[in-house]
């Protein structure tokens, strides 16, 4: 007779000493894991709830400016250093890890309009209302020496923005014209104007480094090639755009923030209509900056909020606001893709997490695995109504909430009216215009 039955040695299943870790034999047989989908769904629901529970995006506030913060620049080499310029002409250097001001410089009389750091990180440039461009050393002055700019250029008109080339000693300013400067010369090497009286922003393309884009006050966005003497082309929109930012990964896309509460992502190669219209703000959008991964961007608005949009999403995935934050004037996404900096009217620079529920600090391997698992579960069940409802909910200040509702009503009314007009007109005389086409007036080559 031969009998074969189970005979387990308990020593194979329990740990040898109390200092050892527990043994966990696995068997992935689906019949041993019943209710796979309902259990995963429950886990996904819990993960979504926990994500909202832990969504505490505000990290720190850097105070010290004596007037509204007008511009922020990232240091091109150091992650923890940030430069900011205020409306009283003061420029401050901040250390983000210590959350303290390293140095302050009274750079200009009147507003500091633009600030940018040199690609090597050794110096930075500022432009101000006093019609000057100043170059400053990044390090503090020697003992007993006064804060003096390395170089000062006196221009003919007020400058409103500045951006430095990625790898060469040239920079671009905008004001009444877009000027290209050599660092070693006191007059611009090239000057562009296209029947426009003033510009609000100029930005170098991060990949095609000789290309530039600028926002002009005649509601147009103009593209330039630095090597040519005339601008390339421009697109005229219904309302003026304030700033623009190139996508650092797909550098043929740029996003501009507009006065009509929207943001528009354009493909440089085809300006006839924007690739995507990003809506959600309830007031003029003042600034925009891309994440270094190029997948998302952040926008600052006059409605006292900042919003994070996916690059190909029409609506924001996140909105940040606090009671004390006033009109947000400038915003930057940090180079490590983890933080967002916002400068606002009430003299503070705020540091936010880019991912609201992220845990800061070093994570253990188990924590990381759990986070990834939860993320995957949330993705898997994101379209279930319960999960979506929790994931989408954001608290908004009452004013913004009401304004949002009002805007929605206005828009509905407009669509309704348009439909009625179309219905009672000759067929084809009132064409259907998509949201993307609506905001572009014309493209000029």
């Amino acid at each position, binding site marked *: 007779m031969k009998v074969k039955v189970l005979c387990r040695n*308990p020593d194979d*299943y329990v740990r040898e000493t109390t200092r050892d870790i527990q043994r966990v034999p696995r068997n992935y047989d689906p019949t*041993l894991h019943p209710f*796979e989908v309902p259990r995963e769904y429950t886990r996904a629901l819990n993960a979504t709830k926990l994500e909202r529970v832990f969504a505490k995006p505000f990290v720190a506030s850097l105070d010290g400016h004596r007037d509204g913060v007008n511009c922020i620049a990232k240091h091109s080499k150091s992650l923890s250093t940030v430069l900011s310029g205020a409306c009283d002409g003061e420029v401050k250097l901040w250390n983000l890890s210590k959350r303290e001001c390293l140095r302050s410089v009274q750079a200009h009389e009147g507003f500091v309009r633009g600030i940018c750091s040199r690609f090597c990180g050794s110096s930075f440039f500022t432009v101000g209302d006093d019609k000057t461009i100043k170059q400053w050393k990044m390090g503090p002055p020697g003992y007993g020496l006064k804060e003096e700019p390395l170089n000062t250029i006196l221009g003919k008109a007020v400058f409103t923005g500045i951006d430095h080339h990625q790898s060469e000693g040239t920079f671009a300013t905008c004001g009444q014209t877009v000027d290209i400067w050599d660092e070693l010369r006191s007059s611009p090497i090239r000057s562009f104007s296209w029947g426009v009286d003033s510009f609000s922003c100029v930005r170098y393309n991060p990949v095609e480094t000789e290309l530039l884009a600028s926002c002009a006050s005649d509601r147009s966005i103009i593209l330039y090639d630095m090597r040519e003497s005339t601008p390339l082309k421009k697109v005229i929109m219904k309302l003026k755009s304030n700033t623009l930012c190139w996508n650092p990964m797909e550098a043929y896309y740029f996003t501009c923030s507009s006065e009509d509460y929207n943001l528009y992502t354009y493909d440089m190669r085809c300006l006839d209509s924007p690739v995507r219209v990003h809506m959600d703000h309830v007031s003029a959008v003042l600034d925009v900056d891309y994440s270094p991964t190029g997948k998302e961007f952040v926008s600052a608005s006059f409605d006292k909020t900042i919003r994070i949009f996916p690059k190909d999403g029409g609506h924001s995935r996140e909105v940040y606001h606090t009671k004390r934050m006033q009109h947000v004037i400038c915003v930057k996404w940090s180079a490590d893709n983890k933080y967002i900096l916002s400068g606002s009217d009430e003299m503070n620079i705020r540091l936010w997490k880019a991912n609201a529920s992220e845990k800061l600090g070093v994570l253990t391997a188990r924590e990381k695995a759990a986070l990834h698992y939860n993320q995957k579960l949330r993705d898997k069940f994101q379209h279930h109504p319960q999960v979506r409802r929790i994931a989408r909910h954001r608290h908004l200040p009452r004013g913004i909430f009401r304004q949002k509702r009002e805007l929605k009503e206005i828009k509905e009314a407009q669509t309704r009216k348009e439909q009625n007009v179309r219905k009672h007109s000759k067929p084809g005389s009132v064409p259907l215009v998509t949201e993307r086409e609506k905001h572009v007036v014309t493209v000029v080559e």
Partner: protein
Amino acid sequence: APKRYWEETQNATKKVEAEKSSDESKQENTDKEKKTDPFPGDAPIPEERMKKFQRGNKLEVPAGTRLKLRETLTRSEAGSDLAQNQSARYDLLLTEDALEGEEDEDTCTISQEDIAEAVDITSGSKHLLLGGRRGHVTCIEWQTKNLMCEINVMETVQDIWLHSEAMFAVAQKKWLHIYDSSGVELHCIKKFNDVLRMQFLPYHFLLATASATGFLQYLDVSVGKEVAAIPTRCGRLDVMAQNPYNAVIHLGHPNGTVTLWSPNQKEPLVKMLCHRGGVRSLTVDKTGYMVTSGLDRKLKVYDIRAFKPLHSFFLPAGASCLSLSQRGLLSAATGDIVQMYRDACGGAPVTKPYMAHRVRGTVWGVGFCPFEDVLGVGHAEGFTSMIVPSGEPNFDALDMNPYRSTKQRQEWEVKALLEKVQPELISLDPGMLGKVDNATFEQKHKERVEAVGYDPLAHKKFKPRMRKRGRSSAGSVEKRKNKVAHEELK
């Protein structure tokens, strides 16, 4: 004597000439000397094992799908393929072997004494709960025979473990009581009266009770709330089983029907006629087979997924208690004999039992010990445990670990409570939640009408106006309206 290397080099010059002639044969030799892997790549996985881990059908991306969606679909498909491959490959590493009986021997003639002499059992602790006809409730660790508690409630009882070995529920003559493992009464639930049978749904933390008054009640043991009370209107409910695949409760009735219940519906999900006489006992397998025995002395196997009868056997004495093991071994008690059938579900019809054993009194209940080769038999003279090769050899410690420590149990309890499945999710198909909701337009419209209270798309019914004079007769007005009707619909 072996040659030294210099001897060979000296000869080498001489050899060159000789080798030139046999150049081709030399090349072949060098090829043979090169080591090649005779089994390149990963070891192939048997088709059958791959099938075991397959979830759903393979998706073929339809032609004309947009690039973005196509990429997402192919990526997710690759991910599930990888998961299937890896778990099938991991299956090779499972050490505990499945059971095997004897060869060329009439297995049902071997006595338990012989088996007990032949094998040696040492195993992790497991807890056993016994309820006597006269109200004797005992819980013991059955391997060490340590008594954990012993109480006598002096009434007829039915008892069952709750989610862990720390608590058990006892249905006494009048009410439902909950005791802890040391025998202290924790709760007396007077809402649950005259309970005859109980089932615990471990992933839902639900205690389902069937009472003499025909009520099927669900108690959520994690919060202590009654989830549902269903008047089945089927008389005394003393045959009950749960389907471990979808947590549906099966009830057997004296008129030969079996009804399937979920807490979300006041009506049975399914009602099937199984026997000519009353249903005596039933049990459900985790893979979707139901075995019933009735007063017509028949034992029937049903496929619950398709609601089809598979086999029917005639047992001369009829089976009073049925139980299915994790590996699909069926035990049936007829009078004082416990019979075991192998491959009763699925395979070819079984003609004779795999094993049999006569106990000292009439059998009242049988139950397999999970993850062990042991069958517990409660009978008129006491309790007997039998060795039957039936248990799942490889357990998953993250799901159910018989060797877990106190700390592990506590952690498991917290996790299990966090992912408690809501009773609303109990349905015949537990994977329903993961499927795409392909509700038809009519279905959606019907739901919308129900939610809104009226039909928003309905057009006013045409009512001809009774006009006695004028050219605009009802017919011509209707014609004019029909001309623009399609524009209205837009």
